[in-house]
């Protein structure tokens, strides 16, 4: 058994495998199928200060080796989360991390502050990269000034581990990463979905209600891996890698590219137990290659 534990600033993970926001609900949905405490963290559904209904149906389209979604941050708001969901998830023995989104720096900060008060939530992932909402979301994540403004506002009011989730829909993702690092982010996670589109040629209509959506799944993996590699070299804070990870091999690639931890997203839909398999696969690979610890592979690609 190789050592699998990693740290993201003050956040200790028993292993580097987490589940990505929006693909694993609040964890509870998967409790029958796998041991939730077997992975390093669960990043729960994007949460906003006020409830959001999300976009109209259809919100999903299957594409080659992936899918598009335009869910649009449907959630019942942070107060509902604190009152009704937090009590159900607080005793799950892993890092329960909340993905926080908003439409202005102030409401990001207010939402984060309310979650700061929850004892058993050790970290948040700040979503400045949702491509499916008109106000906020990716609008902040595609410029250094926008990203900085949100992280600055949140950092003032959020005192635990702050991970900032970056958008790949930018010219140079390393500049955004450096900007949020400068504002006090403890880590960056990347990538969120790539903005895409699909058309039904018989109906001559787009397949998604708002025409465009975020592409995820194996189709985006090479792009995500490249960006993780670039960002890991550009910042000093730990990088969390995600984008199309389906297997332990995929996860190891991201860690070799510089990710301290990884998130599994769309693959949860294909196999709800995949995160445990990836954890075990990383361990087996390390063992079979004579590695004592997962640390030995992080960032080995120059």
């Amino acid at each position: 058994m190789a050592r699998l534990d990693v740290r993201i600033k003050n956040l200790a993970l028993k292993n580097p495998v987490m589940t990505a926001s929006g693909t694993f609900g609040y964890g509870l949905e998967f409790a029958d199928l796998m041991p939730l405490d077997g992975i390093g963290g669960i990043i729960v559904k994007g949460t906003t200060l006020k409830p959001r209904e999300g976009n109209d149906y259809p919100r999903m389209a299957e594409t080659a080796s992936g899918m598009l979604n335009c869910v649009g941050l449907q959630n019942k708001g942070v107060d509902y989360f604190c009152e009704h969901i937090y009590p159900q998830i607080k005793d799950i023995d892993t890092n329960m991390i909340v993905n926080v989104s908003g439409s202005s720096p102030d409401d990001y900060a207010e939402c984060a502050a309310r979650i700061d008060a929850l004892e058993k939530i050790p970290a948040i992932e700040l979503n400045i990269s949702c491509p499916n909402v008109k106000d906020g979301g990716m609008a902040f994540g595609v410029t250094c000034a926008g990203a900085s403004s949100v992280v600055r506002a949140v950092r003032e009011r959020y005192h635990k581990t702050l991970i900032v989730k970056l958008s790949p829909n930018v010219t140079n993702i390393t500049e955004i990463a450096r900007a949020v690092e400068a504002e006090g982010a403890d880590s960056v996670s990347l990538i969120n979905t790539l903005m895409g589109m699909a058309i039904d040629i018989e109906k001559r209509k787009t397949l998604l209600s708002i025409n465009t959506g975020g592409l995820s799944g194996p189709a985006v993996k090479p792009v995500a891996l490249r960006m993780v590699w670039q960002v890991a070299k550009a910042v000093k804070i730990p990088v969390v890698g995600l984008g199309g990870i389906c297997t332990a091999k995929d996860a190891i690639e991201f860690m070799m590219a510089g990710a301290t931890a990884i998130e599994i997203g769309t693959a949860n839909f294909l196999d709800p137990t995949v995160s445990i398999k990836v954890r075990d696969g990383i361990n087996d690979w390390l063992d079979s290659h004579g590695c004592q610890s997962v640390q030995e592979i992080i960032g080995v690609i120059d």
Partner: protein
Amino acid sequence: MKKFLLDLTVRSVDRIHERYVLIKLTDEQPLPEMLPGQFVEIRVDGSPTTFLRRPISINYVDKQANELWLLVAAVGDGTRKLAELKAGDRLNCLLPLGKGFTMPQKPEERILLVGGGVGVAPLLYMGAQMAEMGCLPTFLLGARTGKDLLMLDEFRKYGRVCITTEDGSEGEKGFVTNHSLLQKEQFDRIATCGPTPMMKAVARYARKSETECEASLENLMACGLGACLCCVEKTTDGNLCVCKDGPVFNIRKLLWQD
């Protein structure tokens, strides 16, 4: 209800129509408890263009034979691949998912089960479960032509079967909602599954006749577990997941008042 991820074994695949196959699955262990109206998310192997699992409703559960029956319309790459399965193949199934139909409480309840196309599938299991409790269901099944009616012999085992076809080749001519039965009899509850225009027409009839009615929806889905929020339907309680809060909804919850 506890959910399971199981590699079930294909016992048989019968092409019962040019577009439909009946797949019977079994397992070494007793199959989990499943309710009428629930569904299974199936991983389709060997179809490069099929990325996500395919939701398929539970057609019938044969407890004695330890069989789960799935009626599959081979309409796309994924379902066509399923139709090519052979006895002995394994099929990775996530089940049972969603909330099913409300079952009658008393044998004397008069329940009408209205289905069209492949939507007849879950009504067989519901009718069979009703028959087991001594409650005789009435099936009202619609199809384009007589040869498009599916599994009639099975339906006839459990209840009265009324038929409409669009070309009049079997049963009464027209749509299910044109059937004379609806003028003559009153029911305590209706359960419907089929094309949306058909279910909306059934819902209109139910509202007019003040009959309780549940409809089973089949919005496009990804996770099947209520995690991704892709399959939502607008309801009186906001956007609800068809996979977790449905697929069966009371029509009063749906915004179908057209």
